[in-house]
C-alpha cells in the first residue's frame, strides 16, 4: 500500500470516528434537552392563585393573609363571570323549547370549561377528587384551557381520502344574540386578574408527597423508595459479590466446576431484568415468604440478585489487576493468605470494586422490571425505615412507566412525568459522578 492510500485511509477513518461521535452527541441532546427543560418546569413555573390555594389547603403552606387578599382580588373579577353564567341560566329558562335545547348543550360545555379554568363554581357541591377542587394551577395549562373555552374543536372529515383535520370554531359566534356572548372577551381579557400568575419555585416537588395520584404535590415517596431499593440491593449484593470475587480469584482451584461457575456468572449478567422480576416474585415472595406480598425487602433482594454478577465481575477484575508483587511482598513478610487479601489485595483493588459497585447502584436505581412484581406500587406515601420488611413503596422508575402509560389523566400531568425522569436521571448521574470522584481520590491516595 503506498503512502497516499494509507494517508487517505487514516483520514477517512478519523472522519468516520468523529462523525459517529457527533451523531451520538446529537442523539443524546435530542433526549436530554427535553428531559431537562421540561423536568425543570416541574419546580420552576408560573403558578396561579389556585396553586397557592392548593398548597395552603393540602400542605398548610403559605401565608394565609396574603392568600386571602389575593383570593379576594381575584374573586372580584371572577364574580362577574359567575354572574354572567347565572344570568344566562335565567335567560335559558325563558327561551323557546327547541332553542333552549340547542343552547343548553353548548352552555354545558362552556360551564365545564369555566370550571376547569377557575375551579368549582359557586353553588357546586365539593368534588370528591382533589384535582377538581381547584382551577388551573399552572399558567401555561390555564392558557390551554382558555383556548378550550374560547374555541370549540371540530374535525373536518369532509374528504374521505385524507385524514380528518382538527379546526376550531369560536364559541362566541354560537352565542350571538344572547347575554353570554360578553363572557368570552371578558374572560380573555381578565384571565390574568382572575388567576394572578406569578413565578413560582416549588421545591416541594422534591420533598412533598403526591396528592390525588400525582395531580398535585411532589415525588418524595418515589425518590425515597428508589433510594431504599437501590441501597437495600447494595447492602446484600456488595458483601456477597466481593466475597464471591475473592473466592473466584484467590481460593477456587481452576477446573471444570470453576469455569462453569464463572460462565454461569457471565450469563446471569445478561439475563433480561424482567426474568429477575418474575424470579423475585416466585422465589422471595411465594417460596421464601420474606414478606406477605410486595415489599421493599423483596424488591431489594431481587435487585441484589440482578446486580450481583456485575459486582462479582468488577471485583474480580479489580482483584486480578492488583500487581503480583504486592502479594509476594506481603507473603514474604510472613503474612497469611487471608491477611494478605484483607490488608493488601482488597485495599489496592478498592477503587475498581467501588466503581463497579456504584455503577451497579445506578442500575439498581433505574431498573423497572425487577420491582414491578416485588416492590413497586403506583401511588403511596413515603414509608418509614421500619416498614421496609412489610410495605411496598413507590419508586421513580416504576412511576415513570405508570404515569406514561397507565395513569387515567396522563396527558394532564406531563410536567410530573418529566420531573420524575429528570430526578431519576440526576440520581443516576450523581451516583456515577460520585463513583468517578471516589475512584480518583482513592487512586490518588494509593499512588502517593
Amino acid at each position: 500500500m503506498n503512502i497516499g492510500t494509507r494517508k487517505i485511509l487514516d483520514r477517512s477513518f478519523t472522519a468516520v470516528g468523529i462523525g459517529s461521535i457527533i451523531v451520538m452527541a446529537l442523539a443524546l441532546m435530542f433526549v436530554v434537552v427535553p428531559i431537562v427543560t421540561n423536568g425543570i418546569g416541574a419546580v420552576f413555573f408560573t403558578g396561579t392563585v389556585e396553586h397557592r390555594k392548593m398548597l395552603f389547603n393540602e400542605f398548610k403552606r403559605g401565608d394565609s393573609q396574603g392568600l386571602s387578599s389575593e383570593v379576594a382580588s381575584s374573586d372580584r373579577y371572577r364574580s362577574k363571570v359567575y354572574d354572567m353564567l347565572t344570568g344566562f341560566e335565567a335567560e335559558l329558562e325563558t327561551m323557546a323549547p327547541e332553542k333552549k335545547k340547542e343552547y343548553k348543550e353548548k352552555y354545558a360545555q362552556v360551564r365545564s370549561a369555566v370550571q376547569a379554568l377557575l375551579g368549582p363554581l359557586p353553588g357546586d357541591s365539593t368534588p370528591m377528587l382533589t384535582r377538581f377542587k381547584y382551577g388551573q394551577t399552572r399558567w401555561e395549562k390555564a392558557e390551554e384551557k382558555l383556548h378550550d373555552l374560547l374555541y370549540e374543536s371540530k374535525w373536518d372529515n369532509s374528504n374521505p381520502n385524507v385524514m380528518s383535520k382538527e379546526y376550531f370554531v369560536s364559541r362566541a359566534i354560537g352565542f350571538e344574540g344572547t347575554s353570554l356572548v360578553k363572557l368570552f372577551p371578558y374572560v380573555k381579557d381578565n384571565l390574568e386578574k382572575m388567576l394572578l400568575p406569578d413565578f413560582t419555585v416549588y421545591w416541594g416537588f422534591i420533598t412533598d408527597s403526591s396528592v390525588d395520584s400525582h395531580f398535585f404535590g411532589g415525588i418524595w415517596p418515589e425518590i425515597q423508595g428508589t433510594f431504599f431499593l437501590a441501597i437495600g440491593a447494595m447492602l446484600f449484593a456488595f458483601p456477597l459479590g466481593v466475597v464471591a470475587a475473592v473466592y473466584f480469584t484467590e481460593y477456587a482451584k481452576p477446573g471444570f466446576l470453576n469455569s462453569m461457575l464463572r460462565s454461569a456468572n457471565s450469563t446471569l449478567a445478561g439475563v433480561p431484568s424482567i426474568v429477575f422480576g418474575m424470579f423475585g416474585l416466585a422465589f422471595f415472595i411465594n417460596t421464601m415468604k420474606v414478606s406477605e406480598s410486595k415489599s421493599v425487602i423483596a424488591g431489594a433482594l431481587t435487585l441484589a440478585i440482578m446486580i450481583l454478577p456485575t459486582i462479582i465481575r468488577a471485583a474480580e477484575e479489580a482483584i486480578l489487576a492488583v500487581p503480583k508483587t504486592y502479594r509476594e511482598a506481603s507473603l514474604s513478610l510472613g503474612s497469611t493468605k487471608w491477611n494478605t487479601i484483607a490488608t493488601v489485595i482488597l485495599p489496592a483493588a478498592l477503587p475498581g470494586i467501588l466503581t463497579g459497585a456504584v455503577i451497579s447502584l445506578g442500575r439498581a436505581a433505574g431498573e423497572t422490571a425487577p420491582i414491578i412484581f416485588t416492590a413497586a406500587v403506583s401511588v403511596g406515601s413515603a414509608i418509614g425505615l421500619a416498614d421496609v420488611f412489610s410495605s411496598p413503596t413507590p419508586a421513580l422508575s416504576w412511576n415513570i412507566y405508570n404515569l406514561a402509560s397507565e395513569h387515567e389523566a396522563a396527558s394532564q400531568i406531563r410536567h410530573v412525568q418529566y420531573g420524575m425522569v429528570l430526578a431519576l436521571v440526576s440520581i443516576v448521574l450523581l451516583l456515577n459522578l460520585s463513583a468517578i470522584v471516589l475512584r480518583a481520590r482513592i487512586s490518588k491516595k494509593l499512588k502517593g
Partner: protein
Amino acid sequence: MTVDAKETSESAQLQKATRDIYLPPERKKISGDDTIHISAKEFSIYYGDFEAVKRVSVDIISKYVTAIIGPSGCGKSTFLRAINRMNDLIPSCHTTGALLFDGEDVYGKFTDEVLLRKKVGMVFQKPNPFPKSIFDNIAYGPRLHGVNDKKKLMEIVERSLKKAAIWDEVCDRLDKNALGLSGGQQQRLCVARTLAVEPEVLLLDEPTSALDPKATAKIEDLIQELRGSYTIMIVTHNMQQASRVSDSTMFFYEGVLVEHASTAQLFTNPKDPMTEDYITGRFS
C-alpha cells in the same frame, strides 16, 4: 565402624569442605559459631514434569553472604525462592530431596510456611513497596506479628530504616506514600521492611537489576553492612557484583549446581571448565 559413625564422619567432612569454602585463610572471619544455616540434600524442584533445579546438595553457613550466579533460566531464582517457599504460589511446582533450614525440613509436612517466611525474608527484583505510607510499609510486618504499640512500632521503623541506610533520606516524610520514592530508595525501603520482621536469612533476588549504578552501589554497601548480622543469599546476573559482595559463590547451569567455592577462588581459579567459560564470558 558403625553406619552411624560413618555418616557422622561423612557429614563432618562435608562440613569441613563447607568451612573451607566460607573461611579461606585470607578472608576475615566473622565472629559466630559457624553453624550450617541452610542445607540442601539432593534437592530438586520441578515445574510440572520439568526439573528446574537438579539434585542440588549444598551447605550454607550462617551470617555470610552467598552469591548465586548463572545464565538466565538456570534455576538460580527458583532455588532461592524455594528457601522461603515462595514457589508455593506456582501450583505446578513441587520438590524432591531435602531442604533444611536450621535442621528442619522446609518442605516437611508440618512446616508452617508463614513462620518460615518470617525467619527467611526476601527482597525482589523489582522494588515492590505497598501503596501505603513509608511508616505503614515498614510497620506492616511487625503489625502482622502482633506489635500494635505505637511507640514500639516507631522504634522498629526507625531501627529498620537505619539498618537499611535510608533513615536520613526519609525520616521527615514517614507519612508520605512509599511509591513517591525513587527506585533505589524503594528497594532499600523493601530491605528495611524485610528487616523489620527480624529475619535470620535475607534472600535477595536480583535486587539491583532495576536500579541505576548509583543506587546499585548503595545496595551493595548495604549488603556489606548487613554481612555478619544476617545470612544473606543474593542472586545476581552481575558477576562484578557477586565478586564484590559475597563470601562464597554458587554457579548454576541448567539446573545443576556446577561449582560452589569461595568467591575469590571461583573467580580467579575455577575448578570446573564450565565455570571458567561462564565467568570469562565465553558462552552465554
